[in-house]
Protein backbone atom coordinates (compact mmCIF):
# COMPACT_ATOMS: atom_id res chain seq x y z
CA UNK A 1 0.00 0.00 0.00
CA UNK A 2 1.01 3.61 -0.43
CA UNK A 3 3.28 5.08 2.19
CA UNK A 4 2.34 8.76 1.72
CA UNK A 5 -0.10 10.08 4.34
CA UNK A 6 -3.55 11.16 3.20
CA UNK A 7 -3.98 14.87 2.65
CA UNK A 8 -7.34 15.19 0.93
CA UNK A 9 -10.05 12.54 1.02
CA UNK A 10 -11.68 11.34 -2.17
CA UNK A 11 -15.46 11.02 -2.23
CA UNK A 12 -15.26 7.26 -1.55
CA UNK A 13 -12.91 7.81 1.38
CA UNK A 14 -15.11 10.55 2.76
CA UNK A 15 -18.19 8.31 2.73
CA UNK A 16 -16.34 5.37 4.28
CA UNK A 17 -15.33 7.61 7.19
CA UNK A 18 -18.86 9.02 7.33
CA UNK A 19 -20.32 5.52 7.54
CA UNK A 20 -18.29 4.83 10.67
CA UNK A 21 -18.94 8.16 12.36
CA UNK A 22 -21.84 7.05 14.52
CA UNK A 23 -21.48 3.29 14.63
CA UNK A 24 -19.16 0.41 13.92
CA UNK A 25 -19.80 -1.37 10.67
CA UNK A 26 -18.51 -4.32 8.67
CA UNK A 27 -17.56 -4.18 4.99
CA UNK A 28 -21.02 -5.03 3.63
CA UNK A 29 -22.68 -2.54 5.96
CA UNK A 30 -20.32 0.21 4.84
CA UNK A 31 -21.21 -0.45 1.20
CA UNK A 32 -24.95 -0.47 2.01
CA UNK A 33 -24.64 2.76 3.98
CA UNK A 34 -22.79 4.57 1.20
CA UNK A 35 -25.24 3.27 -1.41
CA UNK A 36 -28.29 4.40 0.62
CA UNK A 37 -26.88 7.74 1.70
CA UNK A 38 -25.79 8.72 -1.83
CA UNK A 39 -28.73 7.00 -3.56
CA UNK A 40 -26.25 5.06 -5.66
CA UNK A 41 -24.39 8.20 -6.77
CA UNK A 42 -21.12 7.03 -5.22
CA UNK A 43 -20.46 3.42 -6.21
CA UNK A 44 -18.07 1.58 -3.95
CA UNK A 45 -16.42 -1.45 -5.53
CA UNK A 46 -14.93 -4.11 -3.23
CA UNK A 47 -11.40 -3.41 -4.45
CA UNK A 48 -11.78 0.27 -3.61
CA UNK A 49 -13.43 -0.47 -0.24
CA UNK A 50 -10.70 -2.80 1.00
CA UNK A 51 -7.90 -0.58 -0.28
CA UNK A 52 -9.45 2.30 1.67
CA UNK A 53 -9.94 0.19 4.81
CA UNK A 54 -6.32 -1.00 4.68
CA UNK A 55 -5.04 2.54 4.13
CA UNK A 56 -7.22 3.94 6.93
CA UNK A 57 -6.00 1.25 9.33
CA UNK A 58 -2.40 1.93 8.32
CA UNK A 59 -2.96 5.66 9.00
CA UNK A 60 -4.74 4.98 12.30
CA UNK A 61 -8.00 6.56 11.10
CA UNK A 62 -10.03 3.43 11.84
CA UNK A 63 -9.45 0.26 13.81
CA UNK A 64 -10.78 -3.26 13.67
CA UNK A 65 -13.07 -3.83 16.66
CA UNK A 66 -14.55 -7.29 16.44
CA UNK A 67 -14.32 -10.51 14.54
CA UNK A 68 -17.55 -12.44 14.49
CA UNK A 69 -16.93 -15.54 12.46
CA UNK A 70 -15.69 -14.17 9.19
CA UNK A 71 -17.26 -10.77 9.78
CA UNK A 72 -14.95 -7.93 10.78
CA UNK A 73 -16.22 -4.62 12.06
CA UNK A 74 -14.44 -1.31 11.97
CA UNK A 75 -14.71 1.80 14.15
CA UNK A 76 -13.46 5.32 13.56
CA UNK A 77 -10.62 6.57 15.80
CA UNK A 78 -10.05 10.05 17.26
CA UNK A 79 -7.66 10.73 14.46
CA UNK A 80 -10.21 9.59 11.91
CA UNK A 81 -12.88 11.83 13.42
CA UNK A 82 -10.50 14.79 13.34
CA UNK A 83 -9.65 14.17 9.70
CA UNK A 84 -13.34 13.80 8.89
CA UNK A 85 -14.18 17.13 10.58
CA UNK A 86 -11.30 18.83 8.81
CA UNK A 87 -12.48 17.47 5.46
CA UNK A 88 -16.06 18.48 6.19
CA UNK A 89 -14.97 22.04 6.97
CA UNK A 90 -12.98 22.14 3.76
CA UNK A 91 -15.97 20.95 1.77
CA UNK A 92 -18.27 23.47 3.51
CA UNK A 93 -15.88 26.25 2.56
CA UNK A 94 -15.84 25.00 -1.01
CA UNK A 95 -19.64 24.91 -1.12
CA UNK A 96 -19.89 28.37 0.49
CA UNK A 97 -17.45 29.79 -2.05
CA UNK A 98 -19.38 28.18 -4.85
CA UNK A 99 -22.72 29.49 -3.53
CA UNK A 100 -21.37 33.01 -3.14
CA UNK A 101 -19.97 33.04 -6.63
CA UNK A 102 -23.16 31.65 -8.10
CA UNK A 103 -25.32 34.23 -6.21
CA UNK A 104 -23.38 37.03 -7.88
CA UNK A 105 -24.01 35.78 -11.41
Amino acid at each position, binding site marked *: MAKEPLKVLTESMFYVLLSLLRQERCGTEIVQFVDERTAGRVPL*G*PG*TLYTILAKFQEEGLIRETAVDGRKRTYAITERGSALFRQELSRLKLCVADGDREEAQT
Partner: protein
Amino acid sequence: MRQKKRTIAPQEMWDPAAIEQWLEEEARRGWRITDCSGWFAKFKRVEPQECRMRVYPCDPEAKEAWQERIAVYEEMGWQFAVALGMDFEVYYCDDPTIPELDTDPEVFAMAWQEPLRKSWRYGWMLLAAMLAVVLIVLVSMLIVGETLLEYLLEAEFRMLFLLLVIMPVFTVLTVWRLRQIYQARKKLAAGIRHTTGDNWRRSRSRWRVSVVIVLAFWLGAWMADIFWMAVEQGPDTSGLPYVSTEQLAEGTENWEPDFSAYRRQCKPLRPVRSDERRFAYQGEMSVMNARSRLRFEWLAKALYQETKREFLKEHSAAEKQTVEHTAFDEAMLLRGEKEQMLLVRSGEVVYFLQVDFPADLLAHVDEIAAELA
Protein backbone atom coordinates in the same frame (compact mmCIF):
# COMPACT_ATOMS: atom_id res chain seq x y z
CA MET B 1 -12.96 -32.30 -25.71
CA ARG B 2 -10.26 -31.12 -23.35
CA GLN B 3 -11.50 -30.08 -19.92
CA LYS B 4 -8.24 -28.55 -18.72
CA LYS B 5 -5.35 -26.73 -20.32
CA ARG B 6 -2.07 -25.19 -19.28
CA THR B 7 -0.20 -22.24 -20.72
CA ILE B 8 2.70 -19.94 -19.85
CA ALA B 9 1.71 -17.66 -16.98
CA PRO B 10 1.78 -13.87 -17.36
CA GLN B 11 4.67 -12.16 -15.64
CA GLU B 12 4.33 -8.50 -16.54
CA MET B 13 2.23 -7.63 -13.52
CA TRP B 14 2.70 -3.93 -14.05
CA ASP B 15 0.45 -4.19 -17.10
CA PRO B 16 -2.78 -5.60 -15.61
CA ALA B 17 -4.83 -4.45 -18.62
CA ALA B 18 -2.99 -6.94 -20.86
CA ILE B 19 -3.58 -9.79 -18.37
CA GLU B 20 -7.24 -8.86 -17.97
CA GLN B 21 -7.73 -8.78 -21.77
CA TRP B 22 -6.14 -12.19 -22.09
CA LEU B 23 -8.27 -13.76 -19.33
CA GLU B 24 -11.46 -12.20 -20.74
CA GLU B 25 -10.69 -13.64 -24.15
CA GLU B 26 -10.06 -17.07 -22.59
CA ALA B 27 -13.45 -16.79 -20.81
CA ARG B 28 -15.15 -15.97 -24.13
CA ARG B 29 -13.60 -19.17 -25.52
CA GLY B 30 -14.83 -21.13 -22.50
CA TRP B 31 -11.72 -21.24 -20.31
CA ARG B 32 -11.44 -19.93 -16.77
CA ILE B 33 -8.15 -19.67 -14.89
CA THR B 34 -7.87 -21.98 -11.85
CA ASP B 35 -4.23 -21.83 -10.86
CA CYS B 36 -1.31 -19.59 -11.60
CA SER B 37 1.68 -20.60 -9.54
CA GLY B 38 5.15 -20.68 -11.03
CA TRP B 39 5.59 -20.47 -14.77
CA PHE B 40 2.26 -21.93 -15.86
CA ALA B 41 -1.38 -20.94 -15.67
CA LYS B 42 -4.03 -23.68 -15.55
CA PHE B 43 -7.52 -23.32 -17.00
CA LYS B 44 -10.70 -25.36 -16.70
CA ARG B 45 -13.47 -25.64 -19.27
CA VAL B 46 -16.53 -23.50 -18.48
CA GLU B 47 -19.51 -22.25 -20.45
CA PRO B 48 -18.17 -19.61 -22.91
CA GLN B 49 -19.32 -16.21 -21.73
CA GLU B 50 -18.54 -12.53 -21.60
CA CYS B 51 -17.17 -11.65 -18.20
CA ARG B 52 -14.98 -9.04 -16.61
CA MET B 53 -11.67 -10.22 -15.20
CA ARG B 54 -9.73 -7.95 -12.90
CA VAL B 55 -6.21 -8.14 -11.48
CA TYR B 56 -5.83 -6.37 -8.16
CA PRO B 57 -2.88 -6.07 -5.77
CA CYS B 58 -3.25 -7.56 -2.30
CA ASP B 59 -1.34 -7.27 0.95
CA PRO B 60 -0.39 -10.19 3.19
CA GLU B 61 -3.28 -10.88 5.59
CA ALA B 62 -4.57 -13.53 7.98
CA LYS B 63 -6.62 -16.37 6.51
CA GLU B 64 -9.78 -15.25 8.34
CA ALA B 65 -9.38 -11.67 7.12
CA TRP B 66 -8.91 -12.95 3.58
CA GLN B 67 -12.01 -15.16 3.85
CA GLU B 68 -14.07 -12.25 5.17
CA ARG B 69 -12.86 -10.01 2.37
CA ILE B 70 -13.59 -12.61 -0.32
CA ALA B 71 -17.09 -13.14 1.16
CA VAL B 72 -17.77 -9.40 0.84
CA TYR B 73 -16.43 -9.41 -2.72
CA GLU B 74 -18.83 -12.26 -3.52
CA GLU B 75 -21.76 -10.43 -1.95
CA MET B 76 -20.86 -7.51 -4.19
CA GLY B 77 -20.82 -9.72 -7.28
CA TRP B 78 -17.08 -10.38 -7.66
CA GLN B 79 -15.77 -13.96 -7.43
CA PHE B 80 -12.21 -14.80 -6.51
CA ALA B 81 -10.56 -16.69 -9.37
CA VAL B 82 -6.92 -17.20 -8.52
CA ALA B 83 -3.89 -15.70 -6.78
CA LEU B 84 -1.07 -14.49 -9.05
CA GLY B 85 1.94 -15.08 -6.86
CA MET B 86 1.91 -13.45 -3.44
CA ASP B 87 1.01 -9.92 -4.47
CA PHE B 88 -1.98 -10.12 -6.84
CA GLU B 89 -5.39 -11.69 -7.07
CA VAL B 90 -7.71 -12.21 -10.02
CA TYR B 91 -11.47 -11.72 -9.70
CA TYR B 92 -14.24 -12.20 -12.22
CA CYS B 93 -17.77 -10.96 -12.61
CA ASP B 94 -20.31 -12.38 -15.04
CA ASP B 95 -22.95 -9.70 -14.46
CA PRO B 96 -22.33 -6.54 -16.50
CA THR B 97 -24.66 -4.50 -14.24
CA ILE B 98 -22.48 -4.98 -11.15
CA PRO B 99 -20.25 -1.93 -10.41
CA GLU B 100 -16.53 -2.18 -11.14
CA LEU B 101 -14.13 -3.76 -8.67
CA ASP B 102 -12.45 -0.42 -8.23
CA THR B 103 -14.55 2.71 -8.46
CA ASP B 104 -12.15 5.42 -7.39
CA PRO B 105 -9.13 6.24 -9.61
CA GLU B 106 -7.16 7.73 -6.72
CA VAL B 107 -7.68 4.69 -4.54
CA PHE B 108 -6.78 2.51 -7.52
CA ALA B 109 -3.54 4.47 -7.90
CA MET B 110 -2.90 4.02 -4.19
CA ALA B 111 -3.34 0.25 -4.50
CA TRP B 112 -0.97 0.02 -7.46
CA GLN B 113 1.69 2.35 -6.12
CA GLU B 114 3.66 -0.28 -4.22
CA PRO B 115 3.52 -3.07 -6.88
CA LEU B 116 4.70 -0.57 -9.50
CA ARG B 117 7.45 0.62 -7.19
CA LYS B 118 8.51 -3.00 -6.74
CA SER B 119 8.54 -3.62 -10.52
CA TRP B 120 10.54 -0.41 -10.95
CA ARG B 121 13.12 -1.54 -8.39
CA TYR B 122 13.25 -5.03 -9.88
CA GLY B 123 13.85 -3.60 -13.37
CA TRP B 124 16.78 -1.50 -12.16
CA MET B 125 18.21 -4.45 -10.23
CA LEU B 126 18.09 -6.54 -13.40
CA LEU B 127 19.89 -3.81 -15.35
CA ALA B 128 22.46 -3.49 -12.57
CA ALA B 129 23.03 -7.27 -12.61
CA MET B 130 23.60 -7.20 -16.37
CA LEU B 131 25.95 -4.26 -16.02
CA ALA B 132 27.82 -6.19 -13.31
CA VAL B 133 28.31 -9.14 -15.70
CA VAL B 134 29.73 -6.77 -18.35
CA LEU B 135 32.04 -5.21 -15.75
CA ILE B 136 33.23 -8.63 -14.57
CA VAL B 137 34.02 -9.57 -18.18
CA LEU B 138 35.86 -6.28 -18.78
CA VAL B 139 37.85 -6.59 -15.53
CA SER B 140 38.77 -10.21 -16.29
CA MET B 141 39.89 -9.10 -19.78
CA LEU B 142 42.01 -6.35 -18.25
CA ILE B 143 43.57 -8.73 -15.71
CA VAL B 144 44.48 -11.31 -18.36
CA GLY B 145 45.40 -8.59 -20.88
CA GLU B 146 43.03 -9.93 -23.54
CA THR B 147 41.33 -7.95 -26.27
CA LEU B 148 37.59 -8.28 -26.86
CA LEU B 149 38.22 -10.43 -29.93
CA GLU B 150 40.48 -12.80 -28.03
CA TYR B 151 37.93 -13.01 -25.24
CA LEU B 152 35.12 -13.87 -27.66
CA LEU B 153 37.22 -16.43 -29.52
CA GLU B 154 38.17 -18.15 -26.28
CA ALA B 155 34.72 -17.94 -24.70
CA GLU B 156 32.64 -21.01 -23.97
CA PHE B 157 29.14 -21.41 -25.40
CA ARG B 158 27.42 -20.33 -22.15
CA MET B 159 29.32 -17.06 -21.93
CA LEU B 160 28.82 -16.29 -25.63
CA PHE B 161 25.09 -16.93 -25.41
CA LEU B 162 24.88 -14.84 -22.27
CA LEU B 163 26.83 -11.92 -23.75
CA LEU B 164 25.55 -11.96 -27.31
CA VAL B 165 21.93 -13.10 -26.95
CA ILE B 166 20.54 -13.01 -23.41
CA MET B 167 22.04 -9.71 -22.31
CA PRO B 168 21.11 -7.62 -25.38
CA VAL B 169 17.56 -9.04 -25.54
CA PHE B 170 16.95 -8.66 -21.80
CA THR B 171 18.48 -5.21 -21.73
CA VAL B 172 16.13 -4.00 -24.47
CA LEU B 173 13.13 -5.65 -22.78
CA THR B 174 14.05 -4.27 -19.35
CA VAL B 175 14.57 -0.73 -20.63
CA TRP B 176 11.22 -0.95 -22.44
CA ARG B 177 9.55 -2.23 -19.25
CA LEU B 178 11.12 0.51 -17.13
CA ARG B 179 9.81 3.10 -19.56
CA GLN B 180 6.33 1.60 -19.39
CA ILE B 181 6.42 1.43 -15.58
CA TYR B 182 7.59 5.04 -15.42
CA GLN B 183 4.67 6.10 -17.62
CA ALA B 184 2.24 3.97 -15.61
CA ARG B 185 3.37 5.61 -12.35
CA LYS B 186 3.06 9.08 -13.84
CA LYS B 187 -0.39 8.38 -15.25
CA LEU B 188 -1.65 6.78 -12.04
CA ALA B 189 -0.45 9.79 -10.06
CA ALA B 190 -2.60 11.90 -12.39
CA GLY B 191 -5.57 9.57 -11.88
CA ILE B 192 -5.32 7.96 -15.33
CA ARG B 193 -5.14 4.23 -15.81
CA HIS B 194 -2.13 3.05 -17.74
CA THR B 195 -2.11 0.52 -20.49
CA THR B 196 0.70 -0.09 -22.93
CA GLY B 197 -1.94 -0.01 -25.64
CA ASP B 198 -0.52 -3.38 -26.56
CA ASN B 199 -2.52 -6.31 -27.60
CA TRP B 200 -2.30 -8.96 -24.85
CA ARG B 201 -0.89 -11.34 -27.45
CA ARG B 202 2.12 -9.06 -27.96
CA SER B 203 2.60 -8.79 -24.24
CA ARG B 204 2.59 -12.58 -23.90
CA SER B 205 4.80 -13.00 -26.97
CA ARG B 206 7.46 -10.88 -25.30
CA TRP B 207 7.31 -13.11 -22.26
CA ARG B 208 7.42 -16.23 -24.43
CA VAL B 209 10.52 -14.91 -26.21
CA SER B 210 12.19 -14.41 -22.81
CA VAL B 211 11.27 -17.94 -21.69
CA VAL B 212 12.40 -19.50 -24.98
CA ILE B 213 15.74 -17.67 -24.80
CA VAL B 214 16.39 -18.85 -21.25
CA LEU B 215 15.39 -22.43 -22.15
CA ALA B 216 17.58 -22.29 -25.28
CA PHE B 217 20.43 -21.15 -23.06
CA TRP B 218 20.17 -24.18 -20.78
CA LEU B 219 19.49 -26.62 -23.60
CA GLY B 220 22.32 -25.16 -25.67
CA ALA B 221 24.72 -25.29 -22.72
CA TRP B 222 23.81 -28.92 -22.11
CA MET B 223 24.21 -29.83 -25.80
CA ALA B 224 27.49 -27.90 -25.96
CA ASP B 225 28.83 -29.90 -23.01
CA ILE B 226 28.04 -33.13 -24.83
CA PHE B 227 29.51 -31.82 -28.09
CA TRP B 228 32.77 -30.57 -26.56
CA MET B 229 33.14 -33.80 -24.64
CA ALA B 230 33.01 -35.58 -28.00
CA VAL B 231 35.72 -33.37 -29.51
CA GLU B 232 37.83 -33.32 -26.37
CA GLN B 233 40.52 -35.37 -28.09
CA GLY B 234 41.43 -32.31 -30.14
CA PRO B 235 40.43 -30.33 -33.16
CA ASP B 236 40.63 -31.63 -36.70
CA THR B 237 43.63 -29.84 -38.20
CA SER B 238 43.49 -31.54 -41.59
CA GLY B 239 43.71 -29.06 -44.45
CA LEU B 240 45.62 -26.57 -42.33
CA PRO B 241 49.23 -25.69 -43.14
CA TYR B 242 52.16 -26.62 -40.97
CA VAL B 243 55.85 -25.90 -41.53
CA SER B 244 58.11 -28.03 -39.37
CA THR B 245 61.31 -26.81 -37.77
CA GLU B 246 63.30 -29.23 -39.91
CA GLN B 247 61.99 -27.53 -43.03
CA LEU B 248 63.22 -24.18 -41.75
CA ALA B 249 66.70 -25.02 -40.60
CA GLU B 250 68.98 -27.95 -40.30
CA GLY B 251 69.64 -29.56 -36.94
CA THR B 252 66.34 -28.49 -35.48
CA GLU B 253 64.67 -31.89 -35.35
CA ASN B 254 65.28 -32.22 -31.64
CA TRP B 255 63.96 -28.82 -30.68
CA GLU B 256 61.72 -29.07 -27.67
CA PRO B 257 58.03 -28.23 -27.67
CA ASP B 258 57.04 -25.24 -25.53
CA PHE B 259 54.09 -26.51 -23.54
CA SER B 260 53.18 -23.06 -22.27
CA ALA B 261 52.38 -22.04 -25.87
CA TYR B 262 50.84 -25.37 -26.86
CA ARG B 263 47.13 -25.12 -27.55
CA ARG B 264 44.73 -27.51 -29.26
CA GLN B 265 41.24 -26.27 -28.66
CA CYS B 266 37.70 -26.27 -29.98
CA LYS B 267 35.59 -23.23 -29.12
CA PRO B 268 32.24 -22.15 -30.54
CA LEU B 269 33.66 -19.21 -32.51
CA ARG B 270 37.02 -20.88 -33.18
CA PRO B 271 36.24 -24.56 -33.87
CA VAL B 272 39.90 -25.30 -34.62
CA ARG B 273 42.90 -23.86 -32.89
CA SER B 274 46.28 -25.47 -32.93
CA ASP B 275 49.29 -23.49 -31.70
CA GLU B 276 52.65 -25.14 -31.46
CA ARG B 277 55.98 -23.63 -30.53
CA ARG B 278 59.32 -25.37 -30.59
CA PHE B 279 62.46 -23.85 -29.23
CA ALA B 280 66.13 -24.39 -28.55
CA TYR B 281 69.01 -22.68 -26.74
CA GLN B 282 66.85 -21.84 -23.71
CA GLY B 283 64.23 -20.13 -25.79
CA GLU B 284 66.55 -17.93 -27.76
CA MET B 285 65.46 -19.55 -31.00
CA SER B 286 61.96 -20.73 -31.70
CA VAL B 287 59.40 -21.60 -34.36
CA MET B 288 55.71 -20.98 -33.90
CA ASN B 289 52.98 -22.52 -36.04
CA ALA B 290 49.56 -21.08 -35.16
CA ARG B 291 46.55 -22.37 -37.09
CA SER B 292 42.98 -21.32 -36.56
CA ARG B 293 39.77 -22.07 -38.37
CA LEU B 294 37.07 -19.61 -37.33
CA ARG B 295 33.31 -19.85 -37.48
CA PHE B 296 32.90 -16.77 -39.69
CA GLU B 297 35.08 -15.08 -42.26
CA TRP B 298 34.64 -11.67 -40.63
CA LEU B 299 36.13 -13.11 -37.44
CA ALA B 300 39.07 -14.46 -39.44
CA LYS B 301 39.61 -11.00 -40.95
CA ALA B 302 39.53 -9.45 -37.46
CA LEU B 303 41.98 -12.05 -36.10
CA TYR B 304 44.32 -11.49 -39.08
CA GLN B 305 44.35 -7.74 -38.40
CA GLU B 306 44.80 -8.22 -34.68
CA THR B 307 47.70 -10.66 -35.10
CA LYS B 308 49.39 -8.16 -37.42
CA ARG B 309 48.77 -5.33 -34.97
CA GLU B 310 50.20 -7.35 -32.05
CA PHE B 311 53.38 -8.13 -33.99
CA LEU B 312 53.81 -4.50 -35.05
CA LYS B 313 53.23 -3.35 -31.49
CA GLU B 314 56.23 -5.37 -30.36
CA HIS B 315 58.28 -4.66 -33.46
CA SER B 316 57.34 -1.15 -34.48
CA ALA B 317 60.21 -0.89 -37.01
CA ALA B 318 59.22 -4.11 -38.76
CA GLU B 319 59.28 -4.21 -42.50
CA LYS B 320 55.98 -5.12 -44.16
CA GLN B 321 55.78 -7.02 -47.40
CA THR B 322 52.51 -8.06 -49.00
CA VAL B 323 52.53 -11.61 -50.29
CA GLU B 324 50.43 -12.32 -53.36
CA HIS B 325 49.05 -15.78 -54.02
CA THR B 326 45.77 -16.98 -55.49
CA ALA B 327 45.22 -19.32 -52.54
CA PHE B 328 45.33 -16.45 -50.03
CA ASP B 329 42.78 -13.76 -49.38
CA GLU B 330 45.47 -11.75 -47.67
CA ALA B 331 49.03 -12.48 -46.66
CA MET B 332 51.96 -10.50 -45.36
CA LEU B 333 55.53 -11.02 -44.33
CA LEU B 334 56.51 -8.96 -41.30
CA ARG B 335 60.21 -8.73 -40.71
CA GLY B 336 61.55 -7.34 -37.46
CA GLU B 337 65.13 -7.12 -36.28
CA LYS B 338 65.24 -10.79 -35.32
CA GLU B 339 61.68 -12.07 -35.58
CA GLN B 340 59.80 -12.73 -38.77
CA MET B 341 56.17 -13.61 -39.21
CA LEU B 342 54.42 -14.93 -42.28
CA LEU B 343 50.75 -14.20 -41.74
CA VAL B 344 48.13 -15.70 -44.03
CA ARG B 345 44.35 -15.68 -44.25
CA SER B 346 42.30 -17.81 -46.57
CA GLY B 347 38.55 -17.71 -45.97
CA GLU B 348 37.94 -18.64 -42.32
CA VAL B 349 41.51 -19.89 -41.82
CA VAL B 350 44.21 -17.75 -40.25
CA TYR B 351 47.73 -19.10 -40.13
CA PHE B 352 50.99 -17.63 -39.01
CA LEU B 353 54.50 -18.92 -38.95
CA GLN B 354 56.85 -17.02 -36.69
CA VAL B 355 60.58 -17.54 -36.26
CA ASP B 356 63.26 -15.62 -34.42
CA PHE B 357 66.26 -16.64 -36.47
CA PRO B 358 67.21 -16.00 -40.09
CA ALA B 359 65.07 -18.15 -42.39
CA ASP B 360 63.45 -17.75 -45.78
CA LEU B 361 59.76 -17.96 -44.90
CA LEU B 362 58.68 -16.99 -48.41
CA ALA B 363 60.19 -20.24 -49.64
CA HIS B 364 57.29 -22.04 -47.94
CA VAL B 365 54.47 -19.97 -49.45
CA ASP B 366 53.60 -22.52 -52.16
CA GLU B 367 53.61 -25.34 -49.66
CA ILE B 368 51.26 -23.40 -47.34
CA ALA B 369 49.05 -22.44 -50.28
CA ALA B 370 48.87 -26.07 -51.42
CA GLU B 371 47.56 -27.12 -47.96
CA LEU B 372 45.00 -24.34 -47.92
CA ALA B 373 43.82 -25.02 -51.44
